[in-house]
């Protein structure tokens, strides 16, 4: 069920999860976090749980990344305005 590809994917998820909290730029942090969602989606699909994979793809990868990015954009706009 869990092949070499799955184990590799798990390792990449773990690495990017650590990178998401240690990286210095917030946008990198969001992108690493969205990679965790993508990896989890593929893992769920490999483990024959398509319902969970669909939910993870729609919410974990799409929606959360979108909300984070738009919030990041709004807040960075405000900080830019404060500095000037």
């Amino acid at each position, binding site marked *: 069920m869990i092949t070499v590809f799955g184990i590799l994917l798990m390792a990449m998820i773990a690495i990017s999860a650590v990178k998401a*909290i*240690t*990286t*210095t*730029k*917030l946008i990198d942090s969001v992108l690493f976090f969205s990679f965790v969602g993508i990896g989890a989606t593929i893992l769920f699909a490999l483990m024959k749980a*398509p*319902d969970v*994979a*669909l*939910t993870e793809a*729609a*919410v974990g990868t*799409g*929606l959360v990344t*979108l*909300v984070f990015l*738009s*919030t990041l954009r*709004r807040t960075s706009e405000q*900080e830019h305005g404060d500095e000037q």
Partner: protein
Amino acid sequence: MSSKLGKKRLFISPMHLLWAIVFGGLFFAILPAISGHESIRSERVGESLLVQAPAQSGAPNAVTAVVVWFRGLDTLGEVSVLFLVAAALGMILGRGKNSTEPESKPNEIVAHAKTLVLPHFMLTGLYITIHGHLTPGGGFQGGVMAAGMALLLILAGDRVKHLHALHFLEGLVGSLYALVAISGIWFAGSFLGNLIPIKTEAFGTLFSAGIIPVLYIFIGIKVGTEIISIYDNFQRREEA
């Protein structure tokens, strides 16, 4: 974050390292107990559910049968939790005099791609919602996908014009879910009872599985409208 904080975002301190070692040790101590555990066959719920679900609910997708048919009450609670979240966010973010500005100068690619991607998004979301009892997916996933279409429009510079209609639809669909559930008491003998008789000869077709597709369509609309209103609240900005 500002540049001062940006330089030192390192989360390494001796206490954190100590906790990491402690929790890692605990995890590897517990691990063999989990992986080697074999429960008694008669105590397993999953296998008997997988056998019973298609016959009792008429839905080939056993996950949907469990979520909407066996545990329909939990789903009602879940949808109300989502409503609570949307209401709380609206209370915090949407108060006072606010203005929703369109995203400043949407990219040329975004502006043109929206007309190309939009119908596909919408169709996929609707398909997943309506076929929730046959194929993987359902109201939650399809609702989020169809809401993704609206979020794309907001990103491409459009605005939610009829916010009241959105909120009305959300409330209407939520009440309809409860209404269908309550009318099950009269017509089928239990809360969330099956009003629409399950025809065994129609097993696996679109118009089957009793009230499951009806409820999943309600859930899909409710989830979609709630996500749009949450995102719209995020887009609002208070006038300084």
